């Protein structure tokens, strides 16, 4: 591989002319042709570039924050498919569906191809010169903005992009880097911090013999689903661990549980304390908690807990018995337990079980300390958005830069983000594709896709040691009029601080310098160029580091009276939004593969639906496909009913992520957006939006439509042996041959 920078970056540019045209003809070209197509023709390719042979390049997946290492298969200059990068411990050579769809971000037909400026209400394509001129007129060297007058709104972001953003804001003496995550795990992180001393402990799922999970969807939407799925696979091998899931609406993880319990929303903490109470009956655990907590726990006898949670009383002692039997165990809290007014308390109560069971250091560990804290991700929250919203509303914010966040779509109605946004005089969106928020901006700058740009990423969840993930282009840019975020930021910074950045002709040079500077940390003795080439080849820089210890603060757990959430006569149903592992908060709704990928539990595609328990549905005489109006205090949406047994009968659930109005052909008009019916409920402790605390009423509209799903007329096996199930004590897993354990 050539070490010359220019060659390295241009290795794809010199490729041939046609490429894709040939394949699309498909069955069309059915006979021998002569002279109709062009041959792949090269000027000066790398030696290993052979037409007809795919070459794999390592990079990093940016579809979610997990930071999985990926390999892209490149042939004739086109990126064809992504695979997991075995060099990366996070992905372990595996990849999820969301990651696979990364290529569709790149090839999306609705991608932005040129900068656009809003003129007289409509976007007009302009040249980069004009766009940059507009940008620098406001934010360049002559800019007078400072402090709170400027803000940058992003989603979760890490690596050198984050660093550059920070520097950019610094140059305005501002620290307004607002990181917004509509599905922020901030409540749980706060609880972790309070009880265990760290925001995100490392879960050793494979080491646990019993996992008790309160709505934690670690297989679907957790902090690192691919890694945890691999751990889960080992967890299921001999000696086989048992998974018990307790949640109001079945998640993907719940669907894989050995035992699944439906619980009344918001009472997870009560149930956890009930188990704690039951566990404390054992001598072994008697001194695990402070005396006053032990005293308070006496209110949590199993009948009371059963009444509050709606789970049979025997289950409590049964689970407690299993926890006692199967050690080490792991107790997890998840979004459905945390997204309540008392969500922090719920999470803390659940974490208390880990302390009682002494799982610290066994199945729960602290993350290794990161040598480059400036690169670690800024974790998002909803409070940050609320703050920005206030500032915008007050007219403080003069310039707003948005990237990777779409609050116009995800902010609830009581956060009037869209209308406040209009008060900001200069709004710039950096995006690969227009979304609802970008549609409201004044200037839209088209970014390179993750398949075209360099970058560095640090995952928020580092399972073991530390990984610095490298992202490199897998393909020559599709549209010449697109640029990388890093390059734009550098340009701006060069305006603000010419001296500091003159050494870097572009972002590539910047990160290459920055990464090679870290060489000593990785104890590499090779030359700078070789170190960089190795990093690119492996796609990841790994540093083995011991896990940090966890603290134990049992006393921070508040044990009040066991109470159910009071019922609301006007809105009798709990509303549990479900987060789809592929669409997440809706940012991936523009990817056709994910739209067509059936939701694992309902198999619905391209749509929104309302999950309702069959018994409730029978009472209300609702059939599948009846269009229901789901009304909360703040708004209402309409969607088709889907009868779903994995849901608490007082609860209805809708998936998030659909209902886009300005996000391209694959997203627009598909389903509805339940973000818009959330009640203004906040976690008492953190002030975060409580996503699971909304109450709704269901009304039949009398309309009916066919639910678009893969499932046929039945969802039972009808006496056929399709999925056979064996009891765990019968199966001799230890004797089996398995790829996972080898």
């Amino acid at each position, binding site marked *: 591989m050539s070490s010359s920078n220019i060659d390295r970056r241009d290795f794809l540019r010199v490729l041939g002319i046609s490429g894709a045209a040939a394949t699309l*003809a498909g069955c069309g070209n059915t006979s021998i042709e002569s002279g109709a197509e062009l041959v792949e*023709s090269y000027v000066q390719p790398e030696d290993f570039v052979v037409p007809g042979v795919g070459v794999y390049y390592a990079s990093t997946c940016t579809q979610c924050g997990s930071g999985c290492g990926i390999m892209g298969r490149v042939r004739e200059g086109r990126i064809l498919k992504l695979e997991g990068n075995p060099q990366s411990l996070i992905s372990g050579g595996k990849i999820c569906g969301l990651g696979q769809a990364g290529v569709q971000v790149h090839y999306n037909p609705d991608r932005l191809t040129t900068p656009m400026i809003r003129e007289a209400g409509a976007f007009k394509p302009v040249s980069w010169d004009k766009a940059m001129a507009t940008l620098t007129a406001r934010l360049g060297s002559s800019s007078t903005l400072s402090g709170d007058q400027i803000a940058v709104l992003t989603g979760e972001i890490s690596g050198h992009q984050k660093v550059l953003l920070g520097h950019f804001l610094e140059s305005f003496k501002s620290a307004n880097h607002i990181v917004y995550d509509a599905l922020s795990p901030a409540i749980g992180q706060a609880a972790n911090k309070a009880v265990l001393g760290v925001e995100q402990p490392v879960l050793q799922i494979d080491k646990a013999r019993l996992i008790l999970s309160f709505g934690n969807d670690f297989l679907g939407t957790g902090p690192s689903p691919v890694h945890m799925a691999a751990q889960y696979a080992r967890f299921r091998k001999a000696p086989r661990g048992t998974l018990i899931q307790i949640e109001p609406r079945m998640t993907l993880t719940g669907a894989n549980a050995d035992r699944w319990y439906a619980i009344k929303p918001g009472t997870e903490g009560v149930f956890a304390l009930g188990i704690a109470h039951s566990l404390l009956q054992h001598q072994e655990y008697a001194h695990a908690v402070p005396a006053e907590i032990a005293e308070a726990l006496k209110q949590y006898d199993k009948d009371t807990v059963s009444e509050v949670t709606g789970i049979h009383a025997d289950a409590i002692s049964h689970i407690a018995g299993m926890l006692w039997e199967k050690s080490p165990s792991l107790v997890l809290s998840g979004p459905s337990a945390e997204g309540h007014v008392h969500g922090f308390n719920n999470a803390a109560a659940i974490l208390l079980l880990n302390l009682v069971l002494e799982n610290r250091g066994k199945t729960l560990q602290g993350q290794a300390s990161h040598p480059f804290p400036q690169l670690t991700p800024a974790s998002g929250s909803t409070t940050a958005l609320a703050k920005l919203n206030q500032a915008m509303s007050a007219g403080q914010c003069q310039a707003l830069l948005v990237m990777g966040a779409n609050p116009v779509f995800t902010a609830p109605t009581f956060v009037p983000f869209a209308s406040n946004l209009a008060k900001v005089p200069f709004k710039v969106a950096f995006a690969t594709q227009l979304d609802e928020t970008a549609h409201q901006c004044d200037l839209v700058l088209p970014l390179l896709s993750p398949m075209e740009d360099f970058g560095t990423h640090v995952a928020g969840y580092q399972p073991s040691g530390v990984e610095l993930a490298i992202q490199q282009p897998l393909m020559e840019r599709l549209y010449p009029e697109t640029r990388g975020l890093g390059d734009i930021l550098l340009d701006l910074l060069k305006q603000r601080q010419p001296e500091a950045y003159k050494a870097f002709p572009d972002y590539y040079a910047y990160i290459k310098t920055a990464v090679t500077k870290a060489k000593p940390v990785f104890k590499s003795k090779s030359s700078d160029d070789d170190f960089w080439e190795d990093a690119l080849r492996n796609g990841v820089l790994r540093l083995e580091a011991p896990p940090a210890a966890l603290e134990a603060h049992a006393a921070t757990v508040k044990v009040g009276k066991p109470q159910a959430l009071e019922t609301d006569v006007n809105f009798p149903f709990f509303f549990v939004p479900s987060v789809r592992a592929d669409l997440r908060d809706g940012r991936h709704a523009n990817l056709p593969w994910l739209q067509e990928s059936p939701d694992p539990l309902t198999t619905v595609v391209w749509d929104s639906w309302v999950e309702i328990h069959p018994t409730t549905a029978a009472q209300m005489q609702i059939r599948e496909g009846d269009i229901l109006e789901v009304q909360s205090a703040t708004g209402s949406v309409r969607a088709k009913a889907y009868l779903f047994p994995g849901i608490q009968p007082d609860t209805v659930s809708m998936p998030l992520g659909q209902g886009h109005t300005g996000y391209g052909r694959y997203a627009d008009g598909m389903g509805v957006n339940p973000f818009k019916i959330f009640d203004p409920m906040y976690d008492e402790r953190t002030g975060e939006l409580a996503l699971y605390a909304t109450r709704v009423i269901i009304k039949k509209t009398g309309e009916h439509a066919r639910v678009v799903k893969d499932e046929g007329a039945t969802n039972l096996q009808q006496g056929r042996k399709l999925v056979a199930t064996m009891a765990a004590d019968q199966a001799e897993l230890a004797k089996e041959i398995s790829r996972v354990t080898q």
Partner: protein
Amino acid sequence: MKVRMKNILVWLSLLVLCGTATGEPFVQGGAIGSQTDDGYNALGPVVEQPIEFPHNTHAGQMGINCMYCHTYARRSAVSGIPRLDKCMGCHKLIESVKDKPRIKKLFEYWEKKEPIPWKKVHDLPDFVRFNHERHIQRFYFREDRPVREVCGYCHGDVASMTTARRVKALSMGWCVSCHQKDHLENAATTKTSNGPNDCWQCHK
């Protein structure tokens, strides 16, 4: 009566033979090494290329091995067009022809760093995968046949052409007729085998 019976038998067996003869598909490939029209009107159209490349000079007069330029043939499914720097590697040094219009064109492309838009001459349908590597490995390396014969079986006597022109049918029956033949496993033995008779070997 006896004679008649015999007649009928002869007549019937003739008919049976006719039946099986029609059972044989009628297209046959030419012999290996046959390098011109195989008698099935398979001559393709003349394809105009951006540069009228003289195969007759390179492969004919100079006697350059096909795979010196079509270097991917032995390691990829496609034989490929030589990369531009390969052409330049020689032609930079060959002063004598530098002024010829074709070479001037070549230099133009090189200076623009633009690949030459060669057109495909032997373009199989898109649902077919023909693997050059396997054929070259088998016949050139293992069976040790002359390269012009190995390539020429499908491409004809390119050494006598300027720009290449299709001279063989390249139809399915044409391919199969050769797969059906007994080919030596390698130069050292008399053991023979056929080409694959599996649809998926060629159909994708």
